[in-house]
């Protein structure tokens, strides 16, 4: 804030409306005016629900929608939830981790090609990366169901190559679920990677070549470290939604491939709110903790 220690002179021949003689008022309130509606919305419909979720997770588990729920600080809900559903928890995180790694491996060359090799095709390729988004997520996932179906060509080829047994199948396996996750979240990996690769001054890579590093060394020592913000953002944008996803596991998997999202969804469906809430809170805490550790490790705090 500016303070005016020097007395502003009061001259008679001021600008007609006279506001030239006094220091302007800085309206800090206008920032709040702009901010408040949106911020209140987020507080009301994001933060408050989160608090309510934590509260719900501590309700008496024997309550129901009809009889109502009583707050009994039932920490046991967490113990029970993890006791019953540890397996989908671990499975969900494992699937998501594999899918994220696959996205990185598949997405990096594509992002690299767009950023450095595409030339005048750059914009077209970017549009093509985003284009599949426009077909509904569920419709695309149903298409995968068809592609991986028992009498589809993918299974046929896999059988011919002996990759799966003659009576084996792809649909309703962990493979199908991971494939679906990988496919659906690939653009979330490619776009941030592209953005950070694009920012790299290409002369840095040439300079590395000039200083006698092989292309592989140049990549490892220059390109990869400089694209780290993209790698971090991409892996988070891929991992977080897949860890909570239940669509792929539901449409492409079976009861043995359930992820934690499926469990939360079905617990809510049957009205077992305390258990569902306890699972949700656990998922949220785990993800926030992982994100925090990951970002700290990768040294990209400024991402936030």
């Amino acid at each position: 804030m500016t303070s005016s220690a020097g007395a502003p002179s009061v001259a008679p021949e001021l600008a007609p409306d006279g506001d030239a003689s006094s220091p302007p008022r800085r309206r800090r309130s206008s920032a709040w005016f702009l901010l408040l509606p949106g911020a209140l919305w987020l507080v009301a419909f994001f933060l408050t629900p989160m608090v309510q979720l934590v509260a719900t997770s501590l309700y008496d588990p024997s309550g129901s929608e009809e009889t109502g729920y009583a707050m009994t600080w039932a920490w046991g809900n967490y113990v029970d939830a993890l006791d019953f559903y540890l397996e989908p928890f671990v499975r969900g995180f494992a699937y998501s981790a594999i899918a994220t790694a696959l996205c990185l491996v598949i997405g990096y060359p594509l992002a690299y090609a767009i950023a450095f090799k595409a030339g005048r095709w750059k914009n077209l390729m970017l549009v093509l990366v985003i284009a599949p988004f426009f077909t509904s997520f569920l419709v695309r996932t149903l298409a995968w169901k068809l592609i991986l179906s028992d009498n589809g060509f993918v299974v046929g080829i896999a059988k011919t190559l002996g990759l799966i047994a003659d009576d084996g199948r792809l649909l309703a396996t962990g493979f199908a679920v991971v494939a679906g996750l990988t496919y659906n979240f690939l653009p979330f990996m490619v776009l941030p990677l592209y953005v950070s690769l694009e920012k790299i001054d290409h002369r840095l890579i040439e300079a590395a070549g000039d200083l006698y590093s092989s292309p592989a060394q140049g990549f490892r020592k220059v390109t990869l470290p400089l694209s780290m913000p993209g790698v971090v953002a991409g892996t988070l944008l891929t991992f977080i939604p897949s860890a909570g996803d239940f669509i792929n596991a539901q449409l492409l998997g079976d009861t043995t491939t359930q992820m934690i999202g499926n469990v939360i969804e079905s617990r809510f469906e049957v009205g077992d709110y305390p258990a569902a809430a306890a699972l949700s809170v656990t998922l949220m805490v785990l993800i926030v903790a992982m994100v925090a550790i990951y970002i700290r490790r990768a040294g990209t705090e400024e991402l936030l």
Partner: protein
Amino acid sequence: MPADPVSGAPPPGDLQLLSLTKRFGEFTAVDDLDLVVPAGSFFALLGPSGCGKTTTLRMVAGLEVPTTGEVRLGEQDITWAKPYKRPVNTVFQSYALFPHLTVYENVAFGLRRQGRKEVTEPVRDMLRLVELESFGARKPAQLSGGQQQRVALARALINQPQVLLLDEPLGALDLKLRRQMQIELKSIQGEVGTTFVHVTHDQEEAMTMADTIAVMHRGVIEQMGSPAELYESPRTTFVANFLGQSNLVPCAINGRDGGDLVIDAQGALVRMPAERAQVHQGKAWLGVRPEKIILGSPGEDLPGNSLGEARIVDVSFVGVSTQYLVRTSWGQELMAFEQNTGARPLMRAGDQVHVRFAGAHAFLLDHDQDARAGVDEDSAA
């Protein structure tokens, strides 16, 4: 209503800054600045980067609110007036042209905001003045640096401001274009007669263009005057070093002899006019510009003050002149420039010379200052 700059409703007057101060938190960017810019002059504000030039201009333009002090234009106090209520326009550092508007619309912007309906003619005239008539339909991104610079100038000038502020307007141009634009700017100013306040860190630019230069250093004005005054009679070591080069010899003032001061410069007794001295007793810096130093052969009898014998340690031939670096008997290195008139053979490193200068060309500065102030600042000379 904004003061109508077109019809010039308030009488044009001098721009006055009175004890103007700007603090950013603890940091004082502009410190108790007093300055009068005469109406119609080409005024340069010269100083190394970070010294507070832009901040000063922004306070004049109304884009920054002074912490204390006053800005007056003629009889009017405009200290707190909104930017759009001042008859002052700015050519921004790196221009700030509106990227979404054509050159034509950029230039017309100010007139339209003042409610002028008919802008075609003045815009065309202005574009002609800056030689961009055929570029009206282009976007700024489709222009070269020099052309963008001229759009920025036209966009400000068309409003016929009482004061035009130019913040390093030529800083982004290459040397050749810069020299050309310096001449163009100067002639445009002569044509329109507006007060120009030209901010630069390039001392040569300031000296070629301005009627009056104010040298700014760490938020304060060190000295103000015509280019010749500043160059011939710098009052601080910073000005002596920042505008051109200076040899500063530590010395002691022995006393006064009529209109002259008698000075002991490292054992050599020299005389100079007392009015060219900032101090009149005690220790001081004796300043002599390199081209004012005369190198004679030992034993050669020439008029002026002698600084004794010295040995040439380095010779640089630069065409019009030769620059000699000599080491004096007390171990100081002095710079001496000599015109290549052909009257005399070049000297070589190792030669012994006799160092002389005319007292009327020397200046005497306060010894409490750093002799190297302003030496390595980024003056682009």
